C-alpha cells in the first residue's frame, strides 16, 4: 500500500465517512491478523488481537493526523497488543501449535501438477520454518515478519516497534542467522523426507 493510499485512508477516517472504518478493516484485516498470528501462533488469539487492535484504532480515530501514513501506526498497535496478550497468557502455547500439515492453515492449495512427493516436501519445509520461527525472540520474529511478509522498510519497522534503525537492522540480521541455523538441514525434507 502506497503512502498516498495510506493518507487517503487517514483522511476518510478523520472525515467520519460512515463506511470508512469498515473499508479500512476490510483493507487491513489480513495484515493485522497475519502479524497477530505470527506473534501468538494461535488462530483464536490472532482473531482476538486483531479485533482488539481495530477497536483501539476506532477509539483513536480522533488522534490521527491528516495525511499521515497509517501502516506504521497500525502495526505498532498490533505489535503491542500482541505482546500484552502474550504476557497476560503468561506462557507461550507451544503445545497448542497447530501442525501445518494436519490443519489447513494456508489458503494456497497444493500444486496439483507437483505431485504428492513435492506436496509432502513443501509441507515438511513449512513445518520446519514454523518451528524455526517459534525459536527466535518475539522482537526478532516481529522484525523478520514485517520485513519479509509485510514488506515494510526497516525504518518503518523501527518506528512500529519503537526501536532505533540500527537495532532493527541488528534484529533482522540475528533473526536471519538463527533461521539459517535452524533450517540448515532441511534437505531431509527432500526425497523421501520426514512426512508429517
Amino acid at each position, binding site marked *: 500500500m502506497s503512502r498516498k493510499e495510506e493518507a487517503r485512508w487517514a483522511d476518510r477516517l478523520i472525515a467520519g465517512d460512515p463506511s470508512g472504518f469498515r473499508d479500512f*478493516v476490510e483493507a487491513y484485516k489480513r495484515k493485522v491478523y497475519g502479524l497477530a498470528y505470527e506473534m501468538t501462533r494461535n488462530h483464536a488469539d490472532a*482473531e482476538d488481537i486483531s479485533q482488539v487492535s*481495530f*477497536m483501539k484504532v476506532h477509539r483513536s480515530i480522533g488522534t490521527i493526523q491528516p495525511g499521515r501514513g497509517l501502516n506504521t501506526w497500525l502495526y505498532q498497535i498490533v505489535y503491542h497488543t500482541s505482546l*500484552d496478550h502474550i504476557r497476560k497468557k503468561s506462557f507461550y502455547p507451544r503445545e497448542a501449535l497447530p501442525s501445518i500439515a494436519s490443519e489447513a492453515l494456508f*489458503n*494456497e492449495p497444493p500444486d496439483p501438477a507437483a505431485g504428492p512427493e513435492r506436496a509432502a516436501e513443501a509441507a515438511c519445509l513449512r513445518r520446519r520454518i514454523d518451528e524455526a520461527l517459534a525459536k527466535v525472540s518475539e522482537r526478532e520474529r516481529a522484525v523478520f515478519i514485517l520485513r519479509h511478509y509485510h514488506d515494510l522498510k526497516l525504518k518503518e519497522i523501527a518506528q512500529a516497534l519503537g526501536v532505533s534503525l540500527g537495532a532493527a537492522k541488528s534484529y533482522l540480521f540475528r533473526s536471519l542467522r538463527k533461521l539459517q541455523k535452524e533450517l540448515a538441514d532441511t534437505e531431509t525434507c527432500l526425497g523421501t523426507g520426514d512426512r508429517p
Partner: protein
Amino acid sequence: MKRCHYWRNRIPEAIYGDLDIKTREKLDRHLAVCERCSDVYSGMAVTVRKMDARPAPDRPPQFWESYWDRLEWRMAHEIGESEGARAGRKGHPAGGPLSRHRAFSVPRWAHGAAAAMVFLTLGIFIGRNLLRPPAEPPLLTRVMPSEPAPGGQPVLETGPAASPLAIRASRYLKRSRVLLLAVVNSDPRAEDVFSLNLPLQKKTSEELVKEAMVLKKEFRSSDRRLERLISDLETILLQIANLKSDAGPSAVEIIKAGVESRDILFKIDLNVVRRSAGKSIVGQSPGPWGENRNQANVKAAAKA
C-alpha cells in the same frame, strides 16, 4: 575484520534490495574478496528463499466474509457493556483474555475498600464484645480515722478511687461533729461549764478553722453544698475558738443556738448519707458498718 562486521550487518538489506546502488556495488566488491562474508551472504539468501516456501498465514474465505460482522458485534457489545447495558448478553466467539477482564464494571479498589470496611467493623465488634476486660472489683480502702468513731468502729471507705481531698473533708466533718456534740450536749445548769475541757476544744476549734480555710480553697466550688457546710462550721468553730476562759453559760447557749439554727449536725449527717448513697450507685452496697454508721448518724442528728 571491522569492514567485515560492517558489511555483514548490511547483508539482509542487500538481500531485500534496500541498499542504494553505490552501497550495493561496494558490498559486492567486498564479497568478491571476502570468502567468509560471501558465505554468510549466500547462506542468508538461501534462507530467505526457503522462507518464501511458506506463505503468510491465512484463513478460509468464509472466515474473512464474516470478519466484519464479528468485529461489529464485539464493538457494539463492548460499548454497551461500558454503558452498563449488559443485560441479556453473553460471551461471544471471539472473546479472549483481552475482553474477559472487562466483565466487571466495579473497580478493584472498591472491592479492597469494602473488604477493609468489613474487617474494621468485625474488629470493632470483637474488641467491644468479646475482648472486653472483666469488670474490676471496686477498690476497698480502709481509712483509719484520726480519731476513733463514736462506736470505736473503723470507717470503711468504698469506691473506685477515694480522693485525698474527700477523705480529708470526711475527717474534718467527723472531728467537727464530735466537737459540736460535746458542746451541744453539755448542760451548763447541771454541770460546771469547765467540765467541757474548754482549752482543748478551743485548740481543736482553731485547728479545724485553719483546716476549713485550706479545704475551702482546695474545693474551688466543686462541691458547693459541702463548701457551704464548711463555711457554717467555720463560723461556729470561730465562736468556740474565741470563747473567753471565763465565759459564762450564756456564751455556750449562743453557740448551741447557732448550731441549731444552721442545722449543722443534720447537714453533717446528711452529707454522710449522701456519700453512702453515692457509693451504692457505683455498685457497692453500704455494708453492715456503713449502715450502722448511717443509723448512728441519723440517731445523732435526731438527738441533736
